[in-house]
């Protein structure tokens, strides 16, 4: 026989079980409420980011160098298009054409070794973009300044120029690759003796007019200018002796000037020049024999007149205001086309 107390106790125990089960069920139900986390907002950049990260730059240089070596080995200008552009493409295409004709291309001062020692990575948004690498010295024992440019986000970086450092020259110090370097606009002359575009224009004038240029004193003497001056003088003398003439002009290629700020407050400037020289023999005179390299580009061995177009890639150290003359750091130059008659 069941007592009322037993019934009451059983009821309380049932209530307790129900409470425990209820708590357990409620807690288990909570498990189904685990929601996905919200998407975190990315941090606002503290500064303009570098155009490429250092590791990315290394990969790009390797890819571009491999493509350049493959094109050089094959002597095929079509292989240059993917990773080479601008003056470098023109110079290498001309060299391939000379080689194909059995002649030995003239030295241009281009890099013979493309393994990078360090990079200068500009802090810049938008396109076109560029960055620079300094290479190991190769067999020529000269480090080179490799310029890579990308026209748009969809275009790869292509090697645009590889001028080798002139003897005895050292590059101005710039910030570490990871820190990036500030871009100096071609027309910006803040704290500089001259804006990058002006520096290139003035040096072109100096190369064209020699010591007669009004800007000659603004540039320190350099082996490249000496070489150009001596070459022009020798050709002029030879042609004058036979009654011929030589005219020549250096002009800055539009849109070619790039610059980054150096640690001393100056700028490292790179520009491409076009050097056009026309040699004309005496009126009614006999045709002369062209240099084998020029003959290969002209498609003929003899001519009475010839117009040679060379391309030059030059790097300058522009000092801060009152910092002295502009120094030429690196140069690359060679013929790209010859028109002979």
């Amino acid at each position: 026989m069941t007592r009322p107390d037993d019934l009451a106790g059983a009821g309380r125990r049932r209530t307790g079980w129900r409470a425990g089960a209820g708590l357990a069920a409620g807690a288990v139900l909570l498990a189904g409420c685990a929601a996905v986390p919200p998407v975190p907002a990315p941090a606002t950049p503290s500064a303009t980011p570098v155009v490429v990260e250092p590791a990315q730059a290394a990969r790009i240089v390797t890819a571009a160098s491999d493509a350049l070596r493959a094109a050089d080995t094959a002597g095929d200008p079509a292989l240059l298009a993917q990773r080479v552009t601008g003056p470098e493409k023109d110079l290498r295409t001309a060299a391939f054409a000379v080689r194909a004709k059995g002649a030995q291309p003239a030295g241009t001062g281009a890099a013979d070794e493309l393994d990078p020692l360090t990079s200068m990575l500009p802090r810049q948004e938008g396109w076109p973009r560029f960055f620079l690498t300094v290479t190991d010295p190769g067999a020529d024992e000269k480090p080179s300044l490799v310029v890579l440019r990308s026209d748009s986000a969809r275009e790869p970086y292509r090697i645009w120029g590889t001028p080798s450092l002139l003897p005895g020259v050292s590059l101005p110090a710039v910030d570490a690759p990871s820190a990036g370097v500030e871009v100096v606009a071609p027309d910006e002359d803040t704290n500089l003796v001259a804006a990058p575009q002006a520096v290139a224009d003035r040096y072109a004038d100096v190369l064209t007019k020699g010591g007669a240029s009004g800007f000659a004193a603004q540039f320190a003497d350099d082996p490249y200018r000496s070489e150009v001056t001596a070459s022009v003088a020798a050709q002029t003398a030879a042609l004058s002796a036979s009654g011929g003439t030589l005219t020549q002009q250096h002009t800055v290629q539009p849109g070619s000037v790039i610059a980054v700020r150096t640690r001393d407050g100056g700028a490292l400037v790179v520009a491409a020049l076009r050097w056009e020289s026309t040699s004309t023999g005496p009126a009614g005179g006999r045709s002369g024999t062209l240099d084998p390299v020029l003959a290969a580009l002209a498609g003929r061995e003899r001519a009475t007149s010839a117009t040679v177009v060379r391309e030059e890639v030059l790097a300058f150290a522009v000092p801060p205001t009152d910092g002295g003359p502009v120094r030429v750091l690196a140069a690359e130059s060679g013929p790209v086309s010859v028109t002979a008659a």
Partner: protein
Amino acid sequence: MKRVLAWFLLLAGLGCAVAGTLLLTVLAPPRQLDVTESAPEPGTAVVTAPGLLELTGPQAALRASGTPQQQVFLGVARAADVAAWLGDASRTELTGVRGELESPSFTTRETPGAAAVDPRTADIWLASASGAGTAELDWPRTASADVEGGVVALAATDGTAAAPGTVSITWQLQGEQAEHPSAVPLVAAGAGALLLGAVGLLLTGRKGTP
């Protein structure tokens, strides 16, 4: 009355402990968050929103699948660079994840537009992978921290044809997502209540003994 309270504590504690143990074991949240987007017409690219790759966990495992004939490309790049690469190209943007951990899905935004170009020719990629039919890429969260402005992922084929039809991202869950937040407190509270209930029962039992 004290005995009733003791019984209540005992049973409630047992319930909480069992519930907490269940939440830590068989009812524990999934170890990873696996979200897949299958779009019949994704445009020329499927791109993630900034921050999505860092949703949770130490890394995001990306996978894009198309037809076996398609060369599938997966890349991760700075968000601004990918926006410049996309330009006016048609795309599906994975803007976030909604739903529960067990059945999540992407929230998306579709933008009609033109074709792009082969993404493999661009140099904007911080990491990339390519393969016939499928491409996979792991992106560590720490790598995002090194890149200013945030990174996004992009899946495409040749930049002109349709993007891979299926894109999935798997994150290893961490913290509150990997372990239900109430599980440990439930076990602890349950153990405490069990102990109190048992002590209460013992004490009330002794007092009731003649």
